[in-house]
């Protein structure tokens, strides 16, 4: 490698910022996978679950009207789906848009920051959307059927702002993990993904095995309990930032392979 000519970084903020915003806009052109598909699925989830809840209630009323009155339909799928789907969005849109951004002569750095900006915006959008849905769910007493479809109160949260915070942190976490996976794929193709899952596997194993080996399972469990959902969501920022920095470093030498 010829390293004697060091990369000149261009500092003028408005120009650089504009380029980053433009890259984010490039991602957001993909409206169907970024908005239409997930919102459509959310709609389906809502309708399907409501029909299911209503049907169960009808059936129960025939048998035991009193318990039907107290029946509490419960599904956590609605919010979880979007959170995991953020990972898919990040993988897909980075690997698709990178070769195109290269044709538009965008630096890798601007491309990466622009992508991250797009995912932050998406995360805020979906955290808001889900919070509003959960708020409505609360207000209507479970869509008038006592059904929980989007709510995540089971995580021990008390207010809508808490819900918003946990959702936002999770969405950002998954989109950054997705970005790191996508960047590995862009740079190393299939082997990159193999490596990605290997690293994730090792990390997961470490989290499980180390407490067992060191006989600190109880302490770790206690830590999770005392830290709580809010605290754990905040702690997610650490792996998020690590994934973000790793992604940036990996992309720096990626090429749009023909």
């Amino acid at each position, binding site marked *: 490698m010829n390293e004697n000519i060091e*990369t000149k970084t261009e500092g003028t903020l408005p120009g650089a910022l504009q380029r980053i915003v433009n890259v984010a806009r490039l991602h957001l052109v993909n409206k169907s996978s970024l908005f239409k598909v997930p919102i459509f699925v959310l709609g389906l989830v809502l309708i399907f679950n409501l029909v299911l809840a209503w049907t169960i209630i009808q059936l129960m009323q025939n048998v035991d009207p009193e318990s039907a009155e107290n029946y509490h339909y419960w599904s956590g799928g609605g919010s979880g789906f979007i959170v995991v789907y953020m990972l898919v969005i990040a993988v897909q849109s980075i690997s698709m848009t990178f070769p195109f951004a290269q*044709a538009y002569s965008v630096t890798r750095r601007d491309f990466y920051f622009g992508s991250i900006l797009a995912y932050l915006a998406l995360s805020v959008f979906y955290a808001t959307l889900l919070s509003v849905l959960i708020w409505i769910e609360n207000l209507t007493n479970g869509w008038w059927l006592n059904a929980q479809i989007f709510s995540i109160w089971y995580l021990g949260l008390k207010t809508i702002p808490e819900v918003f915070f946990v959702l936002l942190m999770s969405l950002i976490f998954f989109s950054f993990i997705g970005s790191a996976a996508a960047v590995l794929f862009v740079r190393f193709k299939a082997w990159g993904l193999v490596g990605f899952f290997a690293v994730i596997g090792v990390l997961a194993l470490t989290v499980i095995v180390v407490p067992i080996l060191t006989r600190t399972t109880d302490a770790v469990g206690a830590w999770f309990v005392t830290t709580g959902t809010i605290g754990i969501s905040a702690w997610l920022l650490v792996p998020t930032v690590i994934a973000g920095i790793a992604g940036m470093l990996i992309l720096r*030498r990626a*090429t749009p392979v023909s």
Partner: protein
Amino acid sequence: MTEVIRVSSLTRKFGKQAAVDNASFTIEKDAIHGLLGRNGAGKTTLMQLLTAQDFPTAGSIEVFGANPVENAKVLSQLCFIKESQRYPDEFKVRHVLESAPWFFANWSESFANDLVEEFDLPREKKLKKLSRGQLSAVGVIVGLASRAPITFFDEPYLGLDAVARQLFYDRLLADYAENPRTVILSTHLIDEVSNLLERVIVIDHGRIVLDEQAESIRGRAFSVSGTSGAVDDFASTRKVLYSSRLGGLTTATVESTSADDRKAAAAAGLEISPVSLQQLIIQKTSSSEREFEHSA
């Protein structure tokens, strides 16, 4: 001539194979350059290196006096849409036209619109549903309408018919005349473009085998044919690029600009015919291939 790109001892290896092999050359400001060579000669790799889409194994590249890698100031002056360019799945033709001006400061919307009409492109169609020729037209339109200070066209006309290719050449010439800029056109259809070019760079097996003004190449070689004895006599004291023999007859391409050589050939009773840029390059590259095989 001012140079906008300077390449020194540039090498790019994939494993042991050198796609670009110790190449050194410059690109002149506001001239149309032909980057010519066979398929697989290293044209695309070279352009990917110049646009910092790929990284050199050795050597250096300066674009506007700086290393282009991660250099937004330099890269924003370049436009390079590859022949095999990939677009995001959901992009329609319209999206390309709408997003291009975000990245190319000199983008001309009216020029782009004219070209869309002339190439008869459906704006609302997704790029992945376009025919090969239509996809090439998208690349051609972005390349032309971006009016980037340095524009790279890599075999820009795959799937385009002769009429559409002529349209591309005509629009390129006309717009270049109005808005002079540096153009690097890579192609193996040399005859079609030879008159458009000011500079010619020929690459073969990753090496630069010819780098000259197009006008000085024209007429630098001619071909003689006649009885083998007469041709051999004539050719023995001159530089022969290529020769072939059939029965007692020989045809030889002789590198020479001198009118005296032509007169001597005529006096020797040989048939003289001109050599086109394409023929010259084919013969240059096939002779370097022989050298290559010898040294390998």
